[in-house]
């Protein structure tokens, strides 16, 4: 076909073409573009299992509707132990999902029973689970972007194993009280550990407050006992340390201070790690008694 220049000429021209130098930045710029398009999708995306939890919510609503509409079903339900009132704590859903660098492990508790209290607490828990998951995802998306902006690559990012765990723990179960805590932990930073405490009075179908348990003077009673216990701990353990009030240490409880109820029926005040003492002291608990 080419009688003027030969196949060999063309091959050498091809070699010349192959020798056009490619700037090193090109690779980084492409990775940047790739990252730019991926997180945009992620940010709007709801983790897959949350979509299923909407389905579970619909099923629960349907069940509740049946209970409310059908006296026969409602009668059957109320005959089951605890189901007619507040009910039992159970694992509504357990999800493990691995999304590249991030693994989610969500153990979603719920209360059985069709009382308004159960439903209200279940709704609160569902909200917490959804909100924490979305927040964790968003924080990680932001970190992902910062990681790439500061020279990290997608493949280096994929080597990470961030874990987001939402779980619950039954703290106490007596004939009268049920206490449990819902925890959310992001293992790439301890700062993102959060706890929500729930206390239920099974006989009265209420959420007892510190005032219900300790009386009108509950703040005074709690403060005195907590200060006494801090002093006792400092006296018996020379390694113990608490922040002074000036350092942000303990001054007073209030109506929203978290607590759970122990087997003796006493409230136990909980201060999360770092809140009133250095991190090595861990979570601080104070059992209070009605005087």
């Amino acid at each position, binding site marked *: 076909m080419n009688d*003027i220049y030969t196949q060999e000429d063309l091959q050498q021209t091809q070699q010349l*073409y192959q020798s056009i130098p490619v700037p090193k930045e090109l690779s980084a710029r492409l990775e940047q573009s790739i990252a730019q*398009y991926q997180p945009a999708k992620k940010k709007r995306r709801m983790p897959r299992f949350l979509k299923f939890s909407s389905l579970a919510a619909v099923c629960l609503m349907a069940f509740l509707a049946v209970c409310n509409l059908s006296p026969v079903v409602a009668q059957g339900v109320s005959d089951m132990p605890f189901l007619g009132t507040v009910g039992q704590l159970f694992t509504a859903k357990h999800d493990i999902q691995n999304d590249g660098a991030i693994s989610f492990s969500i153990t979603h508790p719920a209360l059985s029973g069709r009382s308004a209290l159960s439903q209200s607490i279940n709704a609160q828990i569902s909200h917490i689970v959804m909100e924490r998951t979305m927040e964790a995802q968003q924080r990680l998306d932001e970190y992902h972007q910062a990681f790439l902006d500061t020279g990290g690559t997608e493949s280096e990012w994929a080597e990470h194993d961030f874990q987001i765990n939402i779980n619950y723990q039954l703290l106490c179960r007596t004939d009268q009280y049920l206490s449990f805590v819902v925890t959310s932990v992001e293992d790439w930073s301890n700062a993102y550990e959060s706890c929500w405490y729930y206390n239920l009075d099974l006989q009265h179908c209420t959420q007892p407050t510190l005032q219900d348990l300790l009386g009108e003077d509950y703040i005074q009673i709690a403060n005195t006992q907590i200060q006494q216990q801090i002093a006792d701990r400092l006296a018996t353990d020379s390694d113990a340390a608490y922040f002074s009030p000036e350092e942000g240490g303990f001054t007073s409880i209030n109506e929203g201070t978290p607590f759970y109820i122990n087997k003796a029926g006493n409230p136990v005040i909980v201060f999360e790690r770092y809140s009133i003492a250095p991190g090595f002291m861990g979570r601080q608990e104070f059992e209070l008694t009605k005087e």
Partner: protein
Amino acid sequence: MQPDNQNLYQALTTFLLNEQQKFYRLAYSYCHNPETSMDLVQSAACKALEKYTTIQNPDYMKTWFYRILINECLDYLRRSKRETVEETLPEEQSHDPLSQQADHLDLYQAIMQLPSELKTIVLLRYFEDMTLKEIAHVTNINENTVKSRLYASLKKLRLSLKEELV
């Protein structure tokens, strides 16, 4: 993201990163400027990342992306109104004393000076090693037209070489 789209996305990002040097050289053949070439490749990559879910058949990803890239390059030429640009080659080549090398440089420059619609076909055929069918996909013209343009290009190159050699 649907599992299919996830696979497609993976395939696209791998393809973009693995073949980036080819894209750059192709873009460079149109604009002859390193910065602009990177811009063109990046801009084509962004368009591809935006629209990849519209690919009907993953086998066409390569020709689909080349079409985006070439459209970017041609748009750029239209915008800058420079249909042909003086070629500047890497230093070591342009200063190569071998006359043999100079001949290849002539052929190379002749290709670079072809009108865009012919140049695209020569680049894809001889530098990207595409089949006529693939070129037809990329340029969105039928295979016979590709063939006739390729012959026209070869003829033109031979003529232009003759003129250079006189």
